[in-house]
């Protein structure tokens, strides 16, 4: 049995990431970021330049003279990821370098709040970059402050009593409104789906945006062993919908397809109850989240038809 197995080529995910995403970074146990990096490396190998504004990733990659990623990394100020990435892509083009992908890799704070202006500018100019927003739904490395991508009902250190009262800002929708060639949502619980989306993005020219859902154990207050389980529950409850938007058409991704039918979705309480940040949530807010989920699915149905 073992002989034919040894001859079969190893799957690129995870084999191609070996030696590129290196162990010993300073991320918290259970951190979603190294999981995502292994998927990036499986697609691009070391042929990528990440442009990273202030976020957890600026910290966890390590300090001079070392870093835990065998790829180009440019650390940039908070608001500038999309602008710097645009410049780097233009410079590579001038030099005739075509096999290196420029990727802006930013958190929700650096995207939905502080980076929105340069992001919108780069999208409007249709710059030839991939922008990935890894969304851990708050400013984590500065101490769990609310961002506009924090979901309704979530405790943060700046929404300490009632939790956040406003719904989550939907950045993927904002990007679709820019009319860019490719927009997708992804989740660290579905690395193969994320892989497919990056492969698709790689084959397209122009501005490509991926919104990656990334649960964070210390910030969301859960046991680090459940990072993947919680990310998966977000999809199974219908809260986080995986789709691709390309050529003016929206396609629901395979992991989310069953949940078009509301009766297949798990109750959202299953997702909320595993996380300490929703410990004090009120029934009214749960209802509000439920309504938000319904209206998101209505929007999906409209976009699909």
């Amino acid at each position: 049995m073992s002989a034919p197995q040894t001859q079969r080529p190893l799957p690129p995910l995870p084999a191609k990431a070996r030696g590129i995403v290196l162990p010993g970074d300073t991320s918290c146990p259970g951190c979603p970021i190294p999981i995502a990096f292994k998927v990036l490396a499986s697609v691009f190998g070391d042929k990528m330049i990440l442009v990273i504004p202030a976020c957890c990733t600026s910290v966890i990659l390590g300090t001079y003279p070392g870093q835990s990623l065998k790829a180009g990394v440019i650390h940039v100020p908070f608001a500038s990821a999309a602008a710097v990435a645009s410049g780097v892509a233009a410079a590579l083009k001038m030099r005739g370098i075509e096999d290196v992908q420029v990727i802006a890799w930013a958190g929700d704070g650096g995207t939905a709040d502080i980076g929105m202006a340069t992001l919108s500018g780069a999208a409007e100019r249709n710059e030839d970059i991939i922008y990935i927003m890894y969304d851990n739904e708050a400013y984590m490395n500065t101490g769990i402050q609310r961002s506009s991508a924090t979901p309704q009902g979530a405790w943060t250190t700046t929404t300490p009593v009632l939790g956040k009262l406003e719904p989550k800002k939907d950045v993927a929708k904002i990007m679709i409104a820019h009319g860019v060639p490719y927009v997708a949502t992804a989740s660290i619980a579905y690395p193969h789906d994320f892989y497919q989306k990056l492969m698709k993005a790689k084959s397209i020219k122009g501005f490509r945006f991926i919104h990656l859902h990334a649960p964070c154990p210390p910030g969301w207050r859960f046991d680090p062993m459940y990072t993947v389980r919680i990310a998966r529950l977000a999809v199974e409850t219908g809260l986080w919908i995986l789709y691709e938007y390309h050529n003016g058409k929206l396609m629901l991704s395979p992991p989310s397809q069953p949940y078009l039918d509301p009766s297949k979705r798990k109750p959202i309480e299953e997702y909320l109850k595993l996380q300490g940040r929703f410990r004090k949530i009120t029934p009214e807010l749960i209802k509000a989240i439920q309504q938000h989920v319904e209206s998101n699915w209505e929007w999906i149905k409209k976009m699909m038809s």
Partner: protein
Amino acid sequence: MVKVVPPVDNAKVPLTKPVEGVGGKTGLWRTMYKPVVDSSKCTKCFLCEIYCPGVCIVVDPVKGATINYDYCKGCGLCTDVCPVKAISMVPEE
């Protein structure tokens, strides 16, 4: 095509280099439990290697999953994602 200025002597440019263990031996972060693979159960599905946030599991198509304890942070996530429950957390000696 623009003219490219050759890079100056690398030693004088403060460029970081990829290294293993940039944050030290993160295996020291484990406090009470460590993950252990039961190789008789392992189906070599690669899932633990894909998901391990410590980037310290390698799955060999013949030998199965091996954990590098120098860097394993003890998060326990591999026990949750293994479909056949081949990994379990055991007390550190």
